[in-house]
Structures are given as C-alpha cells and as structure tokens.
C-alpha cells in the first residue's frame, strides 16, 4: 500500500493482496523505486533488449509478429507487421513513440511513463534495432511535464549504464532516445500530425500515401507506435512470442491497461488479460455505478467510440477488437467511461462534442465548421430551445462531417451523438417537446437560461 500512494495518477484501491492479473506492464505498482534502473533491472528489465541484440533484426520482427501484439493506440494494427513494412534502404530511419494521450477517457500512458519509464525506453530500443534505426523519439503531450522529467532521467541513467548511445552493451548497436514534448493539441496524436509537429510545424495531418513506413519523419522510413504498444515489447522479447500469445483471445493477444472512469465506484487503470469482459472490469473490479446507482450507458474505448447500453449481452462481451466490434462499437484506446442513470444524455453528448470542436485543427472546412454547428445545435437542445426537426438536422450536419473530413478526428465528432440518439431518442425528443430534462437533478426544471 505504501508504494501505491506514490504512484501518479493514483491507482484504484487494491481489493485483495493480489491484483486481479499478475502485473506485467504495471509491475511498478508492487515494487518501490521501479523508475530506477537498478530496480527495473533487478526485475527482469533490459533482459528483452539483451536477447534482442543476440538475434538478427529480421528475427526480432518475426518474433513480435508471432506474438500477436496489436497496437494499443486505437486501431489495433499488428505491431510486427507494421515494422515489416519498413523498406531495407540505407540512410536514417526513425522510431517515434506516440505518447500524446489526449483522447478523453484514456490515461494509461500517463501512468506508464511516470512510473515505469525504462520499460518504454527498452521497447523503443528494441524497435529501433528491429527496423535498423539509430534514433527513437518519444513524443509526449506537453502537459506530461513530470512524465517527461522522469523519462529524461531514465534515459540518462540508461546512457550511463551503456544501454543508450554508442555501442550498446558492447554489441556495436548505436541508438539515441530523445524525449520530446508537445504543447497541447489532441490532433498531434494522429500519426501524420505527430510527425509534422515533431518536425517543428503546426500539427496538421498529412495526405496519405505515402505512409510513414515509406516517408515519415523527415521523409524517411518511420515506425509510429503507441506508448503502451512499445511498453509490451520488452515482455515479448524477454519471455518470447509463445509465452506472450498464451494471454488474450484468438485475435487479440496479451494483456493491456484498461482505463475506467466516470460514474463508477473505483475508477482507475486496470491491467487485465485482453478479452476480459466488461462485466468483470466495470462491476467486479470497478464496483459498478457509484452511489448505488445504475449504469445508464458507457463508452467502451475512448470518446471516439460509439456509446453502448449495459445489456447482458454487452456486459458479457470480451474486451478485444473483434468482440466489441460485434456489438457495434470499438476497442479504441480502452478508455471505458461510465454514465449513471441520473446523467442527462444531451448534456453528456454536448460535452463530448465540444471536445472535438475545441480540438479541430482547422485544416479542413467540414470538420472546422461542422463541429461548431454541432455544438451550437446541441447547446440549443440542452437549453430547452430546440425546435422540431433539430434531431434530423444534427444528424445531417454530422453526416456532412464524417467521411468528408481530412482525418479521423472529423469522422469521430458525430459518433457520440449518433450512438446516443440510437439508444435514447426519447430523451432527446423530450428536451424539445418539454423544454426540460427527463432525468437527473434538473428533471422538470425549465432549461432555458440555465447556463
């Protein structure tokens, strides 16, 4: 327990002596001083790198492929396959780690870098070796000021021990790891915008093709992986693909950190085997809805994924890419956000959509203008000033953003509204017909002028 208190952001309380899944990515929770090289190494740290350096780069790519490790940033692309796309050309190649973590409901990378920095650095080094790169960048969102300090200290510690820099562990492998800081922009989590930003420009997404594997950072072959993806890599390389692929489900291997937040009794990060059910995460570990209430609905994988109702079928769904897709939503970044039965869905959707309006980078018109209209109309609805036909109008505006925007941020903006309307149409209509809310503390109160 003493150790838990020094972990930021704070973990959920331990219910038993043992965690629900034996810590791999979150080993720091049980071991004091895990951010120190000495402690990390005493617990198997850099063993994965040692083994990697005894192999050929191609063998490392093959091992990660065989492990079944898939990206934890959102889309779930197989990591080993991504690495295999890097052409075997001479000249610089780069690895960039995406630690921009800004999707509402997601806070795993934050814990990983502040408490377990060497795990990520080891993952970056292994990835560099596998693709023939001598330069890894860890792009952290600027708000992670402390995480950046922790990472920088860890890099210097690793350098002093011959794990970063020239002739690593005497093998002739050279590799620099640079900790880079962003400056507040959700769009820089989009991989091509991240590269623009890392080149010192505004974070506007790039047209593709070419894909980063061919022409990424400084137009050179580049691998971009999420922070948690790369934090998995040392475990794959230390214990081997066979060990790793024993965890998880048929198509989603391994373990991951699920972020639980919102109206739940015990919010926090939970490391679990891929494919654990929503019921286990939300009810058994998270304690269900707070204050003895009921769950109205939840977001399963970060704010860009469609909202689900907690039916038995949904609650028993394994949390993996295919399982959640079969329920009409997405695994995304594994950010699970709970709404209790006193939540006004109109207000919640408004808040979700406001995020996309704020974070639209402004490069293309459908997203820049469309998100503003969405917010305006939802505001009207929320304030009891909605008019008949507004719901269709909002749907219409949404369909003029999704599919017509330059990047996925635009596609995501109408998702909260569309999915909520499917589940709670009568609540939206009630706001128009009664100029008041059906649920929550404001039910029955005239809404106009409340804000």
């Amino acid at each position: 327990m003493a150790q838990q208190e020094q972990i930021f952001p704070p973990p959920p309380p331990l219910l038993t002596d043992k965690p629900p899944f034996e810590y791999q990515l979150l080993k720091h929770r049980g071991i004091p001083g895990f951010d120190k090289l000495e402690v990390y190494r005493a617990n198997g740290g850099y063993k994965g790198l040692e083994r990697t350096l005894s192999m050929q780069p191609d063998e490392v790519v093959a091992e990660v492929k065989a492990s079944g490790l898939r990206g934890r940033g959102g889309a779930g692309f197989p990591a080993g396959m991504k690495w295999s796309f890097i052409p075997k050309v001479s000249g610089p190649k780069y690895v960039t780690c995406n630690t921009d973590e800004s999707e509402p409901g997601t806070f795993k990378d934050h814990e990983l870098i502040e408490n377990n920095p060497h795990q990520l650095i080891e993952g970056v080094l292994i990835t560099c070796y596998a693709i023939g790169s001598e330069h890894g960048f860890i792009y952290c969102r600027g708000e992670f000021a402390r995480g950046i300090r922790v990472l920088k200290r860890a890099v210097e510690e690793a350098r002093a021990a011959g794990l970063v820099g020239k002739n690593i562990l005497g093998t002739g492998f050279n590799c620099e790891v640079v900790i880079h800081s962003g400056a507040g922009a959700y769009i820089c989590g989009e991989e091509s915008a991240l590269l623009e930003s890392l080149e010192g420009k505004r974070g506007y997404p790039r047209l593709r093709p070419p894909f980063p594997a061919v022409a990424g950072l400084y137009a050179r072959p580049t691998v971009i992986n999420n922070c948690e993806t790369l934090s998995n890599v040392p475990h794959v390389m230390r214990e081997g693909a066979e060990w790793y692929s024993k965890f998880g489900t048929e198509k989603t291997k391994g373990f991951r950190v699920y972020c639980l937040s919102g109206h739940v009794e015990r919010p926090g990060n939970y490391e679990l085997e891929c494919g654990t059910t929503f019921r286990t995460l939300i009810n058994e570990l998270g304690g269900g809805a707070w204050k003895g209430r009921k769950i109205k609905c939840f977001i399963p994988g970060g704010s860009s994924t469609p909202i689900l109702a907690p039916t038995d079928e949904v609650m028993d769904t394994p949390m993996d890419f295919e399982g959640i897709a079969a329920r009409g939503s997405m695994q995304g970044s594994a950010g699970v956000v709970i709404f209790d039965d006193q939540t006004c869905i109109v207000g919640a959707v408004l808040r979700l959509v406001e995020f996309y309006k704020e974070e639209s980078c402004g490069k293309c018109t459908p997203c820049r203008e469309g998100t503003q209209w969405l917010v305006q109309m939802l505001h009207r609805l929320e304030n009891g000033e909605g008019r008949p036909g507004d719901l269709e109008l909002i749907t219409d505006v949404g369909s003029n953003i999704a599919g017509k925007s330059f990047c996925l941020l635009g596609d995501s903006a109408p998702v909260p509204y569309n999915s909520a309307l499917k589940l709670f149409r009568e609540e939206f209509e009630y706001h128009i017909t009664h100029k008041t809310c059906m649920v929550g503390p404001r039910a029955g109160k005239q809404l106009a002028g409340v804000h």
Partner: protein
Amino acid sequence: MIEKMDKLEIRSQEYKLSEATRQEIVELVKKYPSSRSAILPALHIVQAQFGFVPVEPMAELAEMLGILKGDVEQVVTFYRMYNQNPVGKFHVKICDSISCYLRGSDELIQHGLQRLGTRLNEVSGDGQVSISKIECLAACGAAPCLQVNDEYMYNVQPEQLDEILDTLKTAKENPYYIP
C-alpha cells in the same frame, strides 16, 4: 515619440532571452537531426523564463533554429500550452472534459472562480492566480483533476480547491512540484 521609443526599448530589454535560456536551447537543439524540430520544447523553455511567450524574442529564437520569425509565430498560435498573454503566476487549469464533467468539474470551476473573485481566464488583482478550463488531461480516473502550471492535482473536491487557492495566494514556487 521619444517616450514611446523608450518604452519599446524597455520592453525589448525586459523580454530578452537570458543567457541561461539561450544555453539551454543550444543544448536542446543538438539532440535533433534538424534544429527546427526543437521548437516546441524550446518554446517551453522561453515560457519558463517569462510565464508566457512574448513576441519580442521570437526573432531571436527563429535565428537560433534557422527558421523564419513567421514559422515561430505559426507554432505559438497553434499550440494551446503557449500563453500569448501574461497569466497568473499560478495558472490553475481545471479539466472539463467528459470524465471530469461527470464528477463535478463544472461546479468545481464555478466554486473556484467565486472563491478567487475572478472570471474565467482573468488574473487575480495581485497577479498571483488565474483559473482556466482545459481539455482532458489524461488523468480521468482521478477526476476531477487540474494542473497548477504544469503540475497535476488529482481527485480535487471543492474544499481542496479552496486550500489550493489559499496556498497559491502567498506561494513563491509551485508547491505541487514533484521532481
């Protein structure tokens, strides 16, 4: 006219990059294959000196990075973390994205503003504190949360915000800094 020149002169002296700042940026640039890549962290260093990013040193920074002053302006105006105007010595940024909203961030912001007697983004009379909203800080499991300058505070209830604001009124250094 002369007086006006003097004021400009004074201002450009006031907003000159210090030798320490310059040195830190020189070291930083060495880490990157292209010096332009250092601009975001370099601007954080500039902001650390002044509390915001004034226009005066942009040309100097541009020169150090081998780019145009306009390139620097483009970046400063795009990224949210760069304050283009002075903020309170302690800038309290309260997250109001979904998970914090669900656990009372709107009420927390209202509460803080009342306590401080300011409006959103307004600096308190003594120049010490300002309160702003911010989008998701990636600490949703510890909602509602906030940052005092760049340091996190988790699970902040109204009474704790009172304490924080009181502490900041007289603080010299950020009391919530963890190395």
